[in-house]
């Protein structure tokens, strides 16, 4: 089982409360009563800057959650941050461990260039200031899966600072409306991952797997600008998309992991519950931060790594060995299209709703699927959007499948949409064909249509005959039409379609009926 690659730092989640104006927190009601009492301590301890500077008048405000996050994303790299060990999942335990990873005495860290590039790239994509000089620090704590007794991180002077992450919340009343929001990025730091402890309760043993120890992480620290779980979840999702677009991190959490984290975030109470149990046991208020404060990490500069120096086009030494230096400007030029730009392009190019552009990007592989269908079909982009987002995605969700696991290929859907576009089949027949395609019987849409005889009747004479028969058999309905009941004609259309086994185009039926009724 692959470990989730984008993880929340267990010590990383920072919750705090701040006084804000009553209306500021959209969506969820503010906690009340005893809950707020418990959280007050967190607010004072966390010392987060308040987003609203106005002094609230007495009785005019409510408590509102302020969420700051530290997100650990594993850097996509073949080797670890400070050693040449491979990074690979589901390898046998302790098979990817260098002498350094096991912290054998005398071993020294050697910085992985790829990880630095990934951090710079991510910093640029998040509008950060890239520090031309950054430093590494040791953070000390004793834990069985931390073999050196400290983690190398960037506490004092991280590689990137002062950025921003823009994400969208679909909260407007109008359908498809997305409200842009921004959370400030405090810093991005490079750091080592720890190993993995496996507790064997039966034998009361802890087994340690160091395969992950020393793997490079990007820690992205968000300022407490998020006001609720939904915002936090959406911001993290956006960050995930950015990292994936950059290729700096696969950031591919298992679905259950996303769900677990989103529900955890959206249910702020869960975090509070942890505090509550603590509270009951001790009979007094003890906040999470307080608990954490007891751990003094005794930060110290990492003496074995010189300051990390980065260059740009102007500061690059002329005699520099390209293998030994990193040029920020060069990395900037290599930045791929970011999700926000992709979405903008989708809206412009295909006239889709902003909301749809979000959905297309949020599902792994869905955008690519969509674009492949577009490439191969004559159908209108709006039609394609609607089919991909409603029908295709609906089937996937129902069976909990990833896009890559879909039984229907982009080509098959494209062919199906072509049949629909050329009016060879009706849209209800198209849905029937899609359902057949989903069964993975290896048939093309064309084959299914002909086998099931789903083509629309092209023979006008035959269709006129069906219409005539229906009118003859239902004189009362015909009377209603003639009396001016506008809905009655639909009933006739329905009857004709039924008579044709749904193979007739309702528009054509309507036209014939109108003609025959001389309307």
């Amino acid at each position, binding site marked *: 089982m692959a470990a989730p690659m984008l993880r929340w730092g267990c010590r990383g989640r920072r919750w705090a409360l701040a006084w804000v104006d009553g209306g500021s927190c959209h969506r969820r009601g503010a906690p009340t009563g005893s809950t707020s009492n418990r959280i007050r301590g967190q607010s004072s301890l966390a010392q987060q800057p308040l987003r609203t500077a106005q002094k609230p008048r007495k009785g005019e405000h409510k408590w509102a959650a302020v969420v700051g996050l530290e997100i650990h994303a594993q850097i996509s790299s073949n080797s670890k941050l400070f050693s040449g060990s491979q990074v690979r999942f589901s390898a046998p335990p302790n098979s990817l461990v260098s002498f350094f990873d096991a912290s054998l*005495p*005398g071993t020294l860290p050697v910085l992985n260039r790829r990880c630095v590039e990934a951090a710079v790239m991510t910093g640029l994509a998040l509008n950060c200031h890239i520090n031309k000089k950054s430093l590494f620090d040791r953070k000390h704590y004793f834990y069985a899966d931390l*073999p050196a*007794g400290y983690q190398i991180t960037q506490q004092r002077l991280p590689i990137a600072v002062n950025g921003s992450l823009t994400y969208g919340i679909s909260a407007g009343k109008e359908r498809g409306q997305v409200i842009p929001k921004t959370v400030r990025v405090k810093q991005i730091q490079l750091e080592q991952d720890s190993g993995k402890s496996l507790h064997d309760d039966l034998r009361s043993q*802890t087994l*340690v797997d160091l395969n992950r120890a020393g793997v490079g992480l990007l820690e992205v620290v968000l300022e407490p600008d998020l006001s609720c779980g939904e915002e936090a979840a959406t911001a993290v999702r956006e960050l995930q998309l950015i990292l994936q677009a950059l290729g700096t991190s696969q950031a591919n959490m298992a679905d259950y992991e996303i769900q677990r984290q989103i529900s955890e975030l959206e249910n702020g109470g869960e975090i509070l519950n942890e505090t509550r149990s603590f509270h009951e046991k001790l009979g007094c208020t003890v906040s999470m931060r307080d608990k954490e404060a007891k751990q003094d990490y*005794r930060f110290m500069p990492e003496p*074995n790594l010189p300051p990390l120096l980065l260059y740009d086009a102007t500061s690059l030494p002329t005699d520099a060995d390209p293998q030994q230096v990193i040029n920020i400007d060069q990395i900037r030029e290599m930045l791929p299209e970011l999700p926000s730009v992709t979405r903008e392009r989708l809206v412009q190019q295909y006239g889709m709703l902003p909301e749809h552009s979000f959905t297309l990007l949020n599902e792994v592989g869905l955008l690519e699927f969509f674009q492949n269908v577009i490439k191969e079909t004559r159908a209108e982009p709006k039609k394609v959007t609607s089919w991909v987002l409603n029908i295709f995605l609906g089937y996937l969700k129902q069976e909990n499948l990833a896009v890559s696991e879909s039984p229907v290929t982009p080509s098959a859907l494209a062919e199906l949409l072509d049949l629909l576009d050329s009016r060879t089949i009706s849209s209800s027949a198209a849905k029937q064909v899609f359902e057949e395609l989903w069964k993975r019987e290896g048939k093309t849409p064309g084959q299914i249509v002909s086998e099931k005889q789903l083509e629309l009747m092209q023979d006008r004479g035959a269709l006129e005959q069906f219409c005539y028969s229906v009118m003859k058999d239902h004189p009362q309905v015909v009377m209603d039409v003639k009396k001016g009941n506008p809905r009655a004609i639909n009933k006739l259309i329905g009857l004709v379609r039924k008579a044709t086994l749904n193979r007739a185009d309702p528009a054509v039926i309507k036209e014939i009926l109108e003609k025959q009724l001389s309307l």
Partner: protein
Amino acid sequence: MLGQTLREVSAALKQGQITPTELCQKCLSLIKKTKFLNAYITVSEEVALKQAEESEKRYKNGQSLGDLDGIPIAVKDNFSTSGIETTCASNMLKGYVPPYNATVVQKLLDQGALLMGKTNLDEFAMGSGSTDGVFGPVKNPWSYSKQYREKRKQNPHSESGDSDWLITGGSSGGSAAAVSAFTCYAALGSDTGGSTRNPAAHCGLVGFKPSYGLVSRHGLIPLVNSMDVPGILTRCVDDAAMVLGVLAGHDPKDSTTVHDPINKPLVLSSLADVSKLCIGIPKEYLVPELSSEIQSLWSRAADLFESEGAKVIEVSLPHTSYSIVCYHVLCTSEVASNMARFDGLQYGHRCDIDVSTEAMYAATRREGFNDVVRGRILSGNFFLLKENYENYFVKAQKVRRLIANDFVNAFNSGVDVLLTPTTLSEAVPYLEFIKEDNRTRSAQDDIFTQAVNMAGLPAVSIPIALSNQGLPIGLQFIGRAFYDQQLLTVAKWFEKQVQFPVIQLQELMDDCSAILENEKLASVSLKQ
């Protein structure tokens, strides 16, 4: 043959006057004879003989690897040696066999050197006497020298017998004793605050501390990463330069090594005249605790330079008096951090307690480390606490910068090399030494040496003369960062002028009864 310098024996090997195997066996036999010195923790006899055999083949085929091919060397037991136990003289690492060689060890082996064994030290190199290791103290070969014994006979107050043997200084005392007693031709020490220069001075050897960043620390079990350097102990300056030539250079495994290597092979020119040299005498190094004998030798050395035409000026290193305190804070802080990995989980000692991981850590570390190490861990962690960090660690770092700047200013004022004492006094008897605790001793003994480590400069201790007691006295030369070659060139000139006498150990070696008696004593001290 055994009393020769590395350069001399290297020539003898090339000329076929002796084979590597013969040389190796002679050294092994001397190691056995001098076992009572407690210089070696591990004697890698089989490895050395096998290496000698291979070296011999190369010489026969005319494929010698160079000046070090077939030369017996010893390595301080805090350098990792593949397949050979590396203990740091600590219970914590007893039985620990590294799976890799330190870069410096590998470089020596690649040149065909014969690894005779791993030498004794203070536990984790924390000390200045080589008295505080789990394998017992190292004895200074000069305790048994003709020079010292004759002086003692003249002194009616001296006690008879062996009870007042002298310390070697430290922490690389095992390496110093090994070279001094002719059991090898060069040895690696480590130098964090003077650990190579101090025992070199006490044992009448050249003790060289290269510029920080010139020689790889990869595989050296760290004391203070930002100050540690592999040190070189030899019988003459040329030998030290030869070894430095092999060791120096960037190591991809040590990011703090510099890219521009020095010229290799490193051959020192013989200075014909010193008239273009400017020698600086730091006035702050004249402290009341300095023995009058060393003080007078120091000033005679300055006179020597002056009389030969060098410019000798007094310089000031105004922050010197803060140096030892500053060193203490930085050293213990890094120690606290570096020692965190010794938790009994992956390697080394592990206690029997298994009620919880935390209890296991605590007991393992209590059993594994001696009082000195535990004391430094404790104070280091105190300095690193959030509430103390600014007041101690950051301040100490600032003072460190001032101390480094003192040296820069001195060199910028035109000084080429600084001349100072290496130690306050000559080697003292063990019983005298242990009257003070390790911390006090280290603070006293590192007084002239540790500032150099904080500034990352090259420095070398050169034996100048024997004291009235017949014991060696060394003086220290300090150079600009990465001017190691210039420093050694000056040291070589000085060495030639002073003609320091060779230790006379022959009588002792032949005196079996003395050895037996000493061996008994050595085993007693081991149990302490």
